[in-house]
């Protein structure tokens, strides 16, 4: 069953077409990579999926539910989680507080306030522990290293228990070892979660993704398994020459 279906989506800003006639389908549990040069429209695609931007035409389906014009928070309630290219956490709050906000929105046991707050704290600690940030729980996010911030960024999305996780350049600005940490983190995610990842780091993409979609200039130019994409002439052209046309 398709977890995500993008049908003939076009996004125009004024006269500029950021995306033109995109058709894409991601299976449940799949690991899909999205690559393309800068300005290809990758983040716009995420924005359309998440609701930050509405398509000029076309539709988006999430597990057969039409979400094209649904407000962001409703999509999240349906199981959409997303990270941002530029760390978009709560910098002036502690790691723990960040987690609590993310965790706190799920329907936990609906009891009195006191009990609910305790469960949020426990769940948050559990997540932080699992991903190695428990020691930094009381640190303000802005005081963490960039790599740790990127982990928080991902945890904020994971804490929502998403059915579909969208990662927007999670490795941006990270060192080799930090990239390895993130890659492991993603690969350890359970199969119930569908993962779509935008990345420039090719090693990371090929390490995680099963299928890859290639965007260029707002258009989808290739779609296939890793090997197919590696051999694709058009893709090589776009990437090797680096520039458009």
């Amino acid at each position: 069953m398709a977890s995500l279906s993008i049908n003939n989506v076009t996004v125009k800003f004024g006269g500029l077409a950021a995306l033109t006639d995109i058709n894409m389908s991601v299976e449940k549990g799949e690991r899909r990579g999205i690559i393309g040069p800068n300005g290809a429209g990758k983040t716009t695609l995420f924005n359309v999926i998440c609701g930050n931007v509405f398509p000029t035409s076309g539709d988006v389906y999430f597990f057969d539910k039409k979400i094209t014009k649904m407000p962001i928070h409703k999509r999240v309630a349906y199981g959409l989680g997303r990270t941002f290219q530029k760390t978009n956490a709560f910098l002036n709050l502690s790691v723990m507080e960040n987690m609590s906000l993310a965790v706190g929105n799920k329907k936990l046991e609906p009891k009195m306030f006191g009990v609910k707050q305790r469960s949020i704290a426990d769940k948050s600690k559990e997540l932080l522990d699992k991903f190695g940030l428990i020691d930094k729980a009381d640190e303000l996010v802005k005081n963490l290293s960039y790599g740790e911030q990127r982990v928080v960024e991902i945890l904020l999305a994971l804490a929502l228990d998403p059915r579909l996780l969208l990662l927007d350049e999670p490795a941006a600005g990270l060192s080799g070892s930090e990239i390895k940490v993130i890659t492991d983190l993603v690969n350890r995610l359970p199969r119930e979660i569908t993962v779509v990842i935008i990345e420039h780091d090719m090693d990371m993409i090929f390490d995680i993704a099963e299928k890859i979609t290639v965007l260029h200039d707002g258009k989808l130019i290739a779609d296939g398994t890793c090997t197919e994409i590696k051999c694709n002439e058009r893709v090589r052209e776009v990437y090797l020459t680096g520039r458009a046309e």
Partner: protein
Amino acid sequence: MTDQISNPTINFIKRLIPFVVVVILLGVVPLSVPPYWADLVTYVFIYYIYAISFDLLLGYLGLISFGHQIFWGTGAYIVGILITRGITTNFGIVLLFSLVVAIVLAAVLGVLVLRTSGIYFSFVNMAFGMAFFALSAKWYALTKGTDGLSGFERPWDMDGTAFYYFVFIFFIAAFLLMRWITSSRYGHVLIGIRENEDRMHSLGYNTWIYKYSAYIIASMFGSVAGVLTAYQNKIVTPDDYGFPISGMALLMCLVGGRASQIGAFIGAAIVVFLFRVVSQFTEHWLIIVGVVFVLVVLFAREGVLGYYYKIKDKLNGIIKHQ
């Protein structure tokens, strides 16, 4: 912070003791100081209720509502209008009516005003504030314009001391209620919206509902303050719709510490007493207000409470190293 959960009972007692002490101290004020000062403290209580409602928007949501005095003024005028027109002198009815009106007003204004954010929010609020000020000054038939509405008595004709305790009860209730609201998950969500509303969307929160409900809650507290101030002064004028009301509240929250009911109290006490004292010595209290404002913004943005926590952290740091 993660340790605090380990012993809730001790923490509760740690917080209860200062609270009880302060309540007792405040409770004996009218019995131990001249009425002038007791009246001043009553004024602090009333302003405090207003300040914490202002702070709900400022400290927790990061919104400066320069038109918040609309609710103070409306609460006050309801007292004036209902009583001087012979509609009722029953405090309960007056209070209830003022709350209902506040909710309706906030519900309508909130929809308009929350279509903006950040600085636009402040501007729009300011404009609406001015609208009400002008309205109260011009609509002579309803408000007697700048003459104001007067000639009404306090509930049960309370004298200074009785009125003090009357307001004191509201003060305590407001403190506890607002503290409960802000320390709950709701309060944390508000803070999240203040810090990064965008991300809150992506975490699945319907931020508009939170802001809207906070606006309405704040309006109710503001209205109560207005009602009490009308009774304290026994007169209501267009100045009850004036900017200085919110300006003062803003200063109080800054001086005492934003996003804190304790900070607001410290701020209210300091500001009221400071300016009462200053105005004995000079007519130029406006410039003093302005200068204090500027200094606080430049050098003491987190207020008294901010310094208190800084010092506390430093001490904790020193202790940990030993």
